[in-house]
């Protein structure tokens, strides 16, 4: 079964976590611009696949050649789904920043940051786990 190097999505998550953390520390106009950029990255991950985002390409061309071969390959579908969850949070944050609801925007960025940190530090995909929780809840309604 073909797959991707699992360290690729973790590298992307690390960059995402830094961008989201910086977003929280910047003044509102700059934060708005940065969350928009992050939103575009998330959207690229969803549409093009996680291997073809800017961070995915940096990982493949600059980082992976310096690492030992991966112990196992991973299915690209879970991280791609997680990018969609990230995109949803980025869009909520963007709309809140644009409408002046700064605290709500920062909470949305903070939640996305929790997910990005969990992925970067622990290799845990929170968005993926929400998938089954969502299915269970949706099916019951």
């Amino acid at each position: 079964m073909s797959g991707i190097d699992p360290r690729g999505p973790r590298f992307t998550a690390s960059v995402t976590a830094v961008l989201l953390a910086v977003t929280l520390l910047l003044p509102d106009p700059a934060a708005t611009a940065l969350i928009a950029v992050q939103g575009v990255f998330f959207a690229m991950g969803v549409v093009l696949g996680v291997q073809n985002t800017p961070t995915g390409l940096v990982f493949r061309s600059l980082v992976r050649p310096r690492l030992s071969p991966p112990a196992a390959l991973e299915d690209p579908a879970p991280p791609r789904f997680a990018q969609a969850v990230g995109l949803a949070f980025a869009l909520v944050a963007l709309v809140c920043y644009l409408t002046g609801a700064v605290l709500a925007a920062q909470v949305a960025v903070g939640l996305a940051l929790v997910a990005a940190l969990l992925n970067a530090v622990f290799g845990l995909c929170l968005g993926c786990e929400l998938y089954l929780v969502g299915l269970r809840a949706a099916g019951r309604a």
Partner: protein
Amino acid sequence: MTGLLVLSLAALAAVGFGLYRRHVDGRFVAHADAAPTAWDHVAAASTGAVPGDRATLVQFSSAFCAPCRTARVVLADVADQEDGVHHVEIDAEKHLDLVRALDVRRTPTTLVLDAAGHEVLRAAGAPQKQQVLAALAHAEGGSR
């Protein structure tokens, strides 16, 4: 500055949850069922699955689940190596009624069923081989 506060809370939450998950992932805990047995539920939902003579490892998986792959490799390896132990993998998305009946909340979740089909132990998160072997020993010790 609220941004710094949100940032700190997010970092704390991530580290706390990550450490908690690292602690509980793959750890088997006692989980008793009544009638109908867990296997009765599985048999009713998933046609063609065959229980093991000694024990059955029932794994719930979903599409967007990287650790499910790890769990599959470990459980299939144990089932290969141990006589009378079968590994049954169930797609949680296709069997949501079963997921609710057995109260599965995460994928991967692994149930250890004894020879009679009763659930004895379960673990959420991918278990390591040693954890599965210890769980099997415990399941057999408890049911005889």
